[in-house]
């Protein structure tokens, strides 16, 4: 017996359900196959390949989670009137069915209540080559500027450039950076909540829903829906209940007519073999403010707010940055967290430095810096399964030194980012 499952959705035409139309197997078999197809795509069961991972196309609507949404308060005043990279960090653009999607880049650089202009660069993680950039020239407009760029999926480096003023006592500040996928809210009366029964009113469970969604609920074979076969109450009841369960699982909402869901959980990608979701968690620019764009003056005199490592020996792990983050309820064994770090070296030996991440659940492996092409920038790629699903927790980035004898190599933590990148 073969489990009925459509390769593509079939549905049934309205004439099949006109009053007094014969109840025959065509719509029933099609419905069984459609329900099995939808269920397998959501759960990953029965060796389904094109599971729902929210990358667009036929693999689920994109989730629109922002790659960058950070607040900071960094003084940008320098003693040299030059253009600097005032903020830089790795960013993770989630996979998409398109080669690129439009993203909005916003940086809040203010002085005297006036928004200052800036420009944006996107550089390759592999080679540091300039991928693209957008120029702004609307200084003085008292609202946040937008730079809209088509960004390809994957890891890349975002750098924000601005000319830092000399003016003392009247500093320019960077107060936040955001990157989000361009979109808008679509106001449609149908995209709100379905009308629900009044909460708290006792209600008979007239549309039964199983406590869990299992593959067997939606497993039927040909003999149960054959032509001229009997309309079997067992098949119809089980199919109806299975679709009810799938409804709650997919939508997160109760079956119409109920005032609450029956199943305790909806789809949340934390049960194997459900597909692992790609998800940016955030990016933070730590010390980009001290690097000028032409490489002449490596460190901007007077610019505050950077963090670096001193010229002394440290083999021990030292925390260099921390964030407090809300974690999704992913199953970490199948979808570990990925942390990417960008560093800049003042002079040589950057690859002796190494980084790891730390949460209350444990410490990641320690990874040495890899230089990016011929640039003075390096990166670290850390995979960490040590987190607790579903809660808010503190994630720390730690630095240590892996070689003995040469400790004159100051290293600058430019920025870092974490994401789920299955």
């Amino acid at each position, binding site marked *: 017996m073969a489990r009925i499952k459509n390769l593509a959705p079939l*549905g049934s035409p*309205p004439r*099949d*359900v006109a*009053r007094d139309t*014969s*109840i025959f197997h065509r719509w*029933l078999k099609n*419905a*069984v196959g*459609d329900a099995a197809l*939808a269920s397998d795509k959501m759960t990953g069961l029965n060796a389904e390949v094109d599971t729902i991972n929210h990358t667009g196309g036929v693999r*689920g*609507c*994109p*989730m629109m989670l*922002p790659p960058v*949404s950070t*607040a*900071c*308060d960094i003084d940008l005043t320098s003693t040299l009137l030059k253009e600097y990279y005032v903020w830089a960090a790795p960013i993770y653009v989630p996979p998409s069915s398109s080669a690129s999607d439009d993203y*909005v880049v916003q940086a809040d650089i203010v002085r005297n209540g006036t928004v200052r202009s800036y420009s944006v660069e996107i550089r390759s993680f592999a080679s540091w080559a300039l991928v693209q950039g957008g120029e702004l020239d609307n200084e003085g407009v008292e609202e946040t500027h937008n730079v809209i760029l088509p960004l390809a999926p994957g890891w890349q480096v975002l750098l924000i450039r601005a000319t830092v003023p000399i003016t003392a006592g009247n500093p320019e500040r960077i*107060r936040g950076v*955001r990157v989000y996928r361009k*979109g*808008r809210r*679509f106001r449609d009366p*149908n*995209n*709100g*909540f379905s009308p629900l029964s009044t909460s708290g009113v006792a209600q008979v469970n007239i*549309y039964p829903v199983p406590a869990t969604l299992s593959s067997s609920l939606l497993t039927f074979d040909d003999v149960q829906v054959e032509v001229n076969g009997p309309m079997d*109450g067992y098949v119809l*009841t089980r199919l*109806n209940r299975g*679709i*009810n369960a799938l*409804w709650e699982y*997919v*939508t*997160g*909402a109760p079956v119409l*007519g109920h005032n*609450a*869901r029956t199943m305790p959980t*909806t789809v949340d990608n934390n049960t194997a073999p459900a597909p692992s979701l790609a998800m940016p*968690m955030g990016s*933070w620019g730590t010390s980009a403010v001290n690097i000028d764009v032409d490489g002449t003056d490596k460190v901007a005199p007077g610019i505050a*707010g*950077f*963090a*670096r490592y*001193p010229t*002394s020996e440290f083999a021990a792990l030292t*925390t*260099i*940055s*921390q964030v407090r983050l*809300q974690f999704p309820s992913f199953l970490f064994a199948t979808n570990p967290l990925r942390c990417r770090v960008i560093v800049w070296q003042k002079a040589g030996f950057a690859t002796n430095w190494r980084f790891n991440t730390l949460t209350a659940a444990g410490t990641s492996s320690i990874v040495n810096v890899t230089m990016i092409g011929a640039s003075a920038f390096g990166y670290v790629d850390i995979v960490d399964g040590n987190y607790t699903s579903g809660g*808010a927790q503190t994630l720390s980035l730690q630095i240590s030194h892996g070689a003995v004898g040469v400790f004159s190599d100051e290293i600058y933590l430019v920025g870092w980012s974490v994401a789920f990148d299955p």
Partner: protein
Amino acid sequence: MERIISSEPLTDAECRTLAPANSRKLAQSIAGRALALYELASGAPAVDAGLTAVNPQGRLGVDRSGPPWGDAHKHALLSCEYITATANIAGDPKFLVELTVIDQRYLVPMRLYVRPFADSPLAPYSRGLLQVVLQGTGAGTSTVEITVRTDDGVTVANHSNLGTSVNILAAAIPIPLSPAVVQTPIVEIRLTTAAPNGMRILAVTLSQTQRTSH
């Protein structure tokens, strides 16, 4: 090609073997919901044109922005990094501000984009939850008052910090959110007690934490 679509469930009684066979009722519910679920899951038209309603993004399918568009997926709406004072790290320790004088106030730089969701009084996404990471700058107990001002009113939370330990104000301070716009929640932190030292505001995190349906 036109296809049946439905969200209407059936009772067990309507599915019984000897129940009156009403093709419109049975087939519309069974066939219509199976097709609707495929379209909601995949985000792609099940047949020639989309049959289900569009989600708050204006697209087909569940986008995990809260029922009926899937679970309200947990994620950080805004976060910032911080470094507590470490002797081995040169440069300025990174934190938002250090409050040293009683009644000194700090307006947290919170500008964030919230992805589209269906806003209704029951929408799980209608509120973000604020956490504040604090650290005393010396011995003694210092206290801050955190005030969140919104159109719905003013929420005030007080938090004390003993010594230089890092404390996380994990109390759920809800902040109303609007979909698909950049917004600036007003969060003010005021030093109310300094005995004798002040308080550092290391970081804030605003998160979407409501995962399941209402």
